[in-house]
């Protein structure tokens, strides 16, 4: 079973993301929902997920810091990280992609946008 970590301090946002993933065919998945980057990092180290979706703007550890930690970790550096943010624009997207993000998606998310972003993942 695939394992997906969703990091967002908003329960509403996590529910929305999860609902979109289920709609595009990722129903039979082990979902791990966490509220910030530090929890996401701990969950990823505990058991390597197939993909990590994270918000940018979170307390304790934000999404950009989480991305840097993941990409600097020998154990986690190959983990695909998708950023889902309300504070994204082309400049921010370019910056995050340079840091190693697989995709950057702007809120509000929708199933078609999620489908496009996860096409490679779904094909595999």
């Amino acid at each position, binding site marked *: 079973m695939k394992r997906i970590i969703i990091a967002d301090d908003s*329960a509403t946002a996590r529910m*929305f993301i999860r609902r979109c993933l289920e709609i595009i065919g990722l129903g039979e998945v082990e979902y791990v929902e966490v509220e910030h980057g530090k929890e996401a990092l701990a969950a990823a180290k505990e058991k390597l997920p197939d993909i990590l979706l994270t918000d940018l*703007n979170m307390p304790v550890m934000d999404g950009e810091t989480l991305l840097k930690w993941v990409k600097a970790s020998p154990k986690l550096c190959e983990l695909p990280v998708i950023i889902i943010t*309300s*504070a994204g*624009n*082309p400049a921010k997207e370019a910056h995050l992609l340079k840091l190693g993000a697989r995709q950057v998606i702007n809120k*509000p998310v929708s199933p078609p946008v999620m489908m496009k972003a996860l096409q490679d993942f779904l094909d595999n």
Partner: protein
Amino acid sequence: MIKHKPLYQAMQQAVSQTLENMAFTEVLTHFDPDYAIPEAELAWTSLLITDPVQGEIRLAMSKSLLEKLTATIYTLEPEEISPAQSKDILNELLNTIAGLFMTALLEDDQTYAIGLPQIGEGPLPEPEENAIVWKLMTADEDPLQLVAVGTSLVSLNESAQ
């Protein structure tokens, strides 16, 4: 208080996109520009814009609208809704609206930073002199209101023109 077009349109578009996408709810300009949500019926949250301009955006709506939106988004009956869910939805709506609003206002090569939303208590603060206020409502005539304050945030209106 002033009402400028670019800033005004950017916010209306951000609110429409957010509510239509998240709650299948259409947003219109309120037919009464002087309408104020009674304090007993008021739910509001605010968020700071920290970079490259400084300001604050507030989102206020009637508690009944917040209840409707929460029920729609979570697919729950009104009696099943918890206060925590309503507050989280109010915050997430503002978070999403603020992001779309700033993206629409700034150049593509300009990054920006916004803070975390914080639920407000008591009455909505009186808007400052140069504040921009959006009086909106849903198709069911449930009121919502947005306020942008902060000199440098509001001045984006001039650079956008």
